[in-house]
């Protein structure tokens, strides 16, 4: 019963927060100066017919006869039916299609890198915290501090120059081979091959933080009496490290992991730019430059949705991992 109550409670908060996020997403672009209809038509020349502008307004659902409230409900309806309007930048391609061609790449690249980085960093952090007095522990600490202070866009360029340009081991741009049409397994291989450098950059950029967080958590848990008791019981070192120390130390890291999983959708702007990777970050960057509000709005919608979803999943996972949350 308690568990059910917890689930319902979390779902309720998810719905409320999502509603607020959607509303903000509707309000903010409407506070911005300028007329989107004019902006689109400006690209076709300096002399714009007043009627054409009005027609464009109607096409965009911004006609003045419609009240703000009606626009709002229409926006809600459209969002939930997956209709995000037409991109100004890629006019007349619908936003949905623009996202469909960039979201999978971002999810694949940034998502995988985030998961790998979290797992690797957490394991190293557990080890570094447990052996904090030994050479290996201090070594990992120094290593992670160095990683954290590297400017990762610079690292991206360095990787690109050394491994891509100089050594020629990896491709310089794109998410898959454009020289030939590949199918099935060979296509997958090509995608992985193209993702190696960008994902390396992303992993290196975030690894240090995961290590440090987990190491610090471990060290504060190791001061607890239950660790002393476990040692007095004569339990094995590995068992205490995992079941007594790491099992408790991982809880704060799980929250941070949830948040970063949520932001996967927003892409990795600098990495995608350096490697000309066709992801959401790159798309968002271009959308901002050309004031492509429908696209920005849609991307923001997906970011808030995924952050909230990730948090919801982490809440459930947390309840599974920490009996105190279950009540």
């Amino acid at each position, binding site marked *: 019963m308690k568990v059910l109550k917890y689930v319902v409670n979390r779902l309720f908060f998810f719905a409320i927060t999502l509603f607020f996020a959607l509303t903000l997403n509707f309000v903010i672009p409407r506070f911005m100066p300028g007329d989107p209809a004019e902006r689109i038509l400006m690209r076709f020349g300096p002399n714009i017919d007043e009627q054409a502008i009005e027609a464009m307004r109607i096409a965009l659902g911004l006609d003045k006869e419609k009240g703000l409230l009606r626009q709002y409900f229409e926006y809600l309806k459209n969002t939930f039916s997956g209709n995000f309007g037409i991109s100004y930048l890629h006019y007349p391609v619908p936003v949905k299609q623009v996202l469909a061609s960039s979201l999978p790449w971002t999810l694949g690249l940034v998502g995988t890198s985030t998961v790998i980085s979290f797992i690797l960093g957490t394991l190293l952090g557990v080890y570094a915290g447990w052996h904090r*007095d030994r050479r290996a522990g201090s070594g990992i600490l120094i290593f992670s501090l160095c990683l954290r202070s590297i400017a990762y866009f610079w690292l991206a360029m360095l990787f690109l120059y050394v491994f891509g340009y100089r050594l020629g081991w990896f491709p310089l741009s794109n998410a898959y081979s454009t020289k030939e049409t590949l199918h099935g397994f060979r296509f997958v291989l090509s995608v992985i091959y193209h993702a190696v450098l960008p994902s390396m950059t992303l992993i290196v950029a975030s690894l240090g933080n995961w290590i440090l967080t987990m190491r610090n958590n471990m060290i504060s848990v190791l001061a*607890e*009496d*239950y660790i*002393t*008791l*476990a*040692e*007095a*019981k*004569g*339990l*094995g070192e590995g*068992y205490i490290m995992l*079941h*007594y120390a790491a*099992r*408790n130390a991982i809880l704060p890291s799980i929250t941070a992991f949830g948040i970063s999983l949520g932001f996967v959708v927003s892409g990795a702007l600098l990495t995608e730019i350096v490697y000309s990777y066709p992801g959401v970050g790159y798309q968002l960057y271009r959308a901002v430059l050309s004031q492509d509000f429908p696209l920005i709005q849609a991307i923001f919608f997906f970011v808030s949705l995924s952050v909230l979803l990730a948090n919801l999943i982490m809440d459930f996972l947390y309840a599974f*991992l*920490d*009996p*105190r949350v279950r009540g």
Partner: protein
Amino acid sequence: MFEVLELNAGYEFRNRFVHAVRNVSFKVEQDDFFGIAGESGCGKTTLMLASLGLLKKPGKVISGRVLVEGLNLLALSNDELKKVRWKKVSLVTQSSMNSLNPVMKVKDQMADVLIRNHGFSKSDAYELVKEKLKLVGITPDRMESYPHQLSGGMRQRVVIAMALLLSPRVIFMDEPTTALDVVVQRSILQQIEELKKKEHFSIVFITHDISLLFELATKIAIMYAGEFVEVGEATLVYSRPLHPYTKGLIEALPSISKDLEKYKSIPGRPPDLTLKIEGCPFRERCSFAFERCRVEKPELRFVNGRWVACHLY
């Protein structure tokens, strides 16, 4: 049965060493209730951790032996330690709030040592857990609980039941009731005494609450600046203390019968344990100090039925 011989231990930092346990020896016999008292920072907990081979870096045992039924605990290999620990000597830690792993069920954190180190089957282990919990007055349905679902007193009972699991001969208790209110404290101490009679184990009880020890302990050791300054029968030490520090501690106890007008204390602070102490460590706070106390360190000597380290005798 359990013997600590000339133990020296402390904490090692880059350029200094905190010598927290200085040449301490003591022996715990069958059915002893051995109390160790001293103010905060005198080395009580370090002594306990070192005696159990649990002192971790930067802590370090420099010399000494700990004999458990003839085996030197400090010289055993990891595999040998696994068999001795908890079976021969177990531990009840300081704070009832953090003594249990918050993410494990009570039964699992009690049973893991039985299953992993002592060859119990799962069902045998849970059976024993149930039995020991009953002994401290906790009903079997609490086995499925997580620590946060128990009160502070219940948690401390679980920790005591855990210490009893393998019926060890000696149980170390480091301020086991400090975090509890006086009523719960009283009932847990009574329970410890009853259990001790029933299960025949000896207790090494470490506390700063000296009045508690005079009531419970059979033998008592007064610790000052890492050393034992007076060791003997609790009743004897209480009725006729010899060391000026012991006298000061007893005089500082508030009395129920007398008025609380005069609140006595011992002036000054304990010496810095990183320094080498010349002469008697207590001399600067001692009103009986004379020339010899400054130059010569007093050794423990047997005087009037107890051991005392003071030049007055």
